[in-house]
């Protein structure tokens, strides 16, 4: 459907695996370092070095991921990405200003991941937070977590978690748990776990019981993120099934892995 008119169809370049691997390793190393080494330091109340490491590790890792993934994407996935990013920012900004306990800022990422696959989802997540950073710098350090959400959502879609509407919330719950774990050190070391009014009440409750800041932020992340992703995955599943067949037919990922139940435009796509 999207064959170029001026050039013979060229195969999409292979993803630059080395860049992706280095990016992922950097993010994983940053996370492990923050969780294993720093909890002693935060008790004294100073976290400048850990903020710096958080910022560089997660942002740099996200940038490497994007650099590795972008050359391999098809034009139709690439055109989908700005759409997902704009949806993320528009909806996330609204949810944040309403003071909800959940963020809803991953609807676009998950939608792109379901329609175009894990690689496009990961790139959308990372770029989305980078661009959102232009309007709301507080979103910037969460870029790596958003990339992980996109990657996992796409993988879940590839293995059929969106074929039944009732499976999508389950996938959301699991992905949300991972997302919460990754986001917690960012929240704790960059912002002292201060978030919106809603998430703050949760952190305060865990702190009142006597948890350390990282533990309280992790528990809050596990609570908020699982519920948030459960809602987001359900919404995206409902959205994807509500799309007209013509719109679904333009995404080869949907056809190849039979992401959605039913005929998924195979009659048109062939």
């Amino acid at each position, binding site marked *: *459907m*999207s*064959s*170029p*008119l*001026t*050039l013979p169809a060229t195969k999409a370049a292979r993803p630059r695996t080395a860049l992706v691997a280095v990016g992922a390793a950097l993010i994983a190393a940053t996370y492990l370092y923050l969780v294993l080494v720093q909890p002693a330091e935060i008790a004294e*109340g*100073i*976290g*400048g070095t850990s*903020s*710096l490491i958080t*910022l560089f590790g997660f942002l740099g890792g996200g940038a490497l991921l*994007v650099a590795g993934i*972008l*050359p391999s*994407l098809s*034009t*139709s996935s*690439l*055109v*989908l*990405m*700005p*759409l997902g*990013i*704009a*949806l993320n*920012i*528009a909806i996330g900004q609204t949810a944040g200003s309403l003071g909800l306990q959940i963020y809803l800022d991953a*609807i676009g990422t998950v939608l792109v991941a379901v329609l175009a696959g894990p690689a496009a989802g990961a790139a959308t997540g990372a*770029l*989305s937070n980078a*661009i959102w*950073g*232009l*309007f*709301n*710098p*507080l979103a*910037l350090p969460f870029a790596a977590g958003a990339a992980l959400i996109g990657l996992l959502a796409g993988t879940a879609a590839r293995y059929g978690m969106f074929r039944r509407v009732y499976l999508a919330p389950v996938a959301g719950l699991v992905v949300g748990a991972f997302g919460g774990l990754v986001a917690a050190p960012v929240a704790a070391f960059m*912002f*002292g776990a*201060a*978030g*919106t009014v809603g998430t*703050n009440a949760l952190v*305060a409750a865990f*702190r009142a019981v006597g*948890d*350390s800041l990282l533990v309280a932020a992790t528990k809050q992340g596990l609570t908020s993120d699982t519920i948030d992703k459960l809602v987001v995955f359900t*919404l995206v599943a*409902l*959205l994807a099934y*509500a*799309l*007209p067949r013509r*719109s679904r037919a*333009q995404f080869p990922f949907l056809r190849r892995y039979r992401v959605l139940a039913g005929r998924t435009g195979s009659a048109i796509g062939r």
Partner: protein
Amino acid sequence: MPRRRVFNPLTELLAAALLVVLVLVVNTWQFSLAVLVAAVVPGVLFSGKPRQIALAIAVTAGPLLVSSFLLHGLFFPEGTTVLAEWGPARVTAEGLQFAALTGLRLAVFTGVLLTAALTVSIPELVSTLTHRGWNRRLVFVVGSAVGLLPHVAERSRQITRAQQARGLVVGGSVPSRVRGLLMVSVPLVTGLLIDAAERTQLLEARGFSSPGPRTSYLPDTDTAGQRTARWLMAAGVLGFACAWYAVGAGR
């Protein structure tokens, strides 16, 4: 009155980012406060749209500051100097100090980056990135996402109004809210996807995926001097950070 642009957007964004890095490296409340007073406040005042930027900073950082003080002021189990106590909530000196330190850092972080980002002209940034030979897929995604944002907001407003004219009631119970959300988001996403499909064909027809050099219709506002300055600034901050940590380790 729009501000007369002095530097290239890339230079300004890099300078803002490096300032944030400096604040994180030094990490004392005195330095954070100094940057806030000496850099952020004049930057906002001379930006050409001080009210808009001040409002954006207040909306972004304000709630976070308030909640930071409430959170750490009231619940800081590590604190020993208790100033007041109500039930599970204890006001501790250490908690307030922690809140002040993170709060100031946050204020600088949002202030510096927002001032730089809100004064940057996105078309100029995109054209600079093209001239500097950045990955054009990245340039396309960034430019197109920023361009889509107001479009998405406007479109969702129109769809909400249309559905309200058909009897959609916003608010009420949770199921009715969810239904309202779906009634707006399904047409929104469908419309955007159809637009995207058309754009794909238009881009392909114009050789978007073909290799080869690109021409930007906007002139290059970057200069060799600024390019050198960017490298020097980055090297300077890196050197300072190394020296700072070396001195800190020696002490």
